[in-house]
């Protein structure tokens, strides 16, 4: 499919930094029908995310933060309200806004390289060599160049999430949506990934919406931390984390932020929320 007046983009062009999106979430409501009637997962939630901003959504399970992420991704439709990406309404999923899921949604029938190439193959105007170059670049970025021929089951949990990250970055989205991507990992691996994600965010300039139930993680990564309250799901409080980057998860300043957020979270009366680092 060669469109007239539109030249083929090269790997170098493909690797250029695209402008990150500005997101506007306006009065989004969503309810689910469950066994015990209808549950209001999101109640008129409004939120603006600036270009290249890193926003963390924290809250107990069932407060609608993952639902909001899915709505921003276009994987779910809100009952009412609107999501705008750069002023245009989001009507469905698309590669401008890629999602990194909690469980690695990597495809076991493909190798590491095959997984990273999956999204690239859906981009027109690229030769297979360009795609390979782009995929190699991102595997290098997440530190897995040596494993491009590996099968998915041969990787550790942390490596799987690195591949997921490379796969999500490869089509060069404007927004990265991360749904508790590190929740299933051990503390040491997580700490490494906090460093990596900050470095990559700086290098690739993405707008990131990051869902977590780990307060310390949110304070470590986010420019802003939005605390969600459940029943119905809504934004309860907003914290701006004003700390220099790269941030260390174990720093004292960060702990102070985490304590403040945790206090607010506890005041909501949800003992089930994980507040440990």
């Amino acid at each position, binding site marked *: 499919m060669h469109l007239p007046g539109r030249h083929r983009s090269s790997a170098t062009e493909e690797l250029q930094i695209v402008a990150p999106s500005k997101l506007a979430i306006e009065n989004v409501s969503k309810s689910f029908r469950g066994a015990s009637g209808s549950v209001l997962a999101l109640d008129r939630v409004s939120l603006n995310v600036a270009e290249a901003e890193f926003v963390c959504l924290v809250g107990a399970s069932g407060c609608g933060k993952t639902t909001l992420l899915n709505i921003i991704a276009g994987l779910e439709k809100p009952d009412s309200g609107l999501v705008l990406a750069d002023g245009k309404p989001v009507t469905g*999923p698309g590669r401008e806004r890629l999602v990194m899921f909690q469980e690695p949604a990597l*495809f076991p029938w493909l190798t590491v390289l095959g997984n990273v190439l*999956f999204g690239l193959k859906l981009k027109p105007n690229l030769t297979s060599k360009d795609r390979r170059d782009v995929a190699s670049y991102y595997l290098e970025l997440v530190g897995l160049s040596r494993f491009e021929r590996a099968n998915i089951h041969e990787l550790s949990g942390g490596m799987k999430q690195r591949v997921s990250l490379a796969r999500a970055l490869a089509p060069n989205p404007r927004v990265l949506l991360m749904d508790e991507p590190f929740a299933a990992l051990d503390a040491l691996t997580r700490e490494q990934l906090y460093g990596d994600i900050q470095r990559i965010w700086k290098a690739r300039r993405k707008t990131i919406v990051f869902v977590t139930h780990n307060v310390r993680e949110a304070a470590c990564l986010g420019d802003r931390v939005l605390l969600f309250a459940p029943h119905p799901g809504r934004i309860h409080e907003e914290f701006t984390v004003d700390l220099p980057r790269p941030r260390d998860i174990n720093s004292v300043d960060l702990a102070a932020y985490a304590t403040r957020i945790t206090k607010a979270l506890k005041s909501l009366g949800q003992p089930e929320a994980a507040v440990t680092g």
Partner: protein
Amino acid sequence: MKRFLLAAIFFAALVLIWEILFRVKIWSPVLLPSPGQVVTYLESAAADGTLAKATVITMRRLLVGYVIGLIMGLPLGLLTARWKLFHDTIGTLALGLQTLPSVCWVPLALLWFGQTETAMLFVVVMGTLWSVVIATETGVRNVPPIYRRAALTMGSKRFHIWFKVILPAALPFIVSGMKQGWAFAWRSLMAAEIFVTILTGFGLGQLLHYGRELNAMEQVIGIMIVIVVIGLLADKIFFSPIEKFLHRRWGTSQA
């Protein structure tokens, strides 16, 4: 190499026991021929071409029917997995007919199609089809929804998702269904060939049948061995490499 040697010793021992049983003459040599007699029969059958001809006829029936069964079964399985209506109708039918031993199709096929190749083909297709339908449906239903969601965000759409995500993800199930379908087809074809003489060609089952009619036990045993070897070869040449690939990629335990 060690494994191969052990297996070789095992089969040599089997033949040896057979030979000893023959020599001590517990049973009449008419009922239990020696390994040598069976080999002599196989050699002569190979030399005059009967064996090759019968094998070709049987394999042609089997392969044509099997491929038809696959071509019909895969899309039907996808339909039953995708739409409730097909699941409730064709899915239920497949589930029911899969429990029917496929040799039960032989009388029906004979009445419908007479002593023709079509009857043979019909039996093989029925043996293959329902296993493949059910395996495909099960496979597709077991694909984690997150694969689809991940693919959607990367810009994958309907057909692309079906061919590049759902089908590959369901592959382990589909392959085991194909294997089961193969086994069913092979068994039902043998049964059909033993029961029915079809003038358009004598397959291995018919050779077996004539062995019985002529009281030629060395022929019966010889053909049985050929049938076993074909089954083994099909597994080693066709299914085993696919299963090895699946084990390697998916990381499931290697048999």
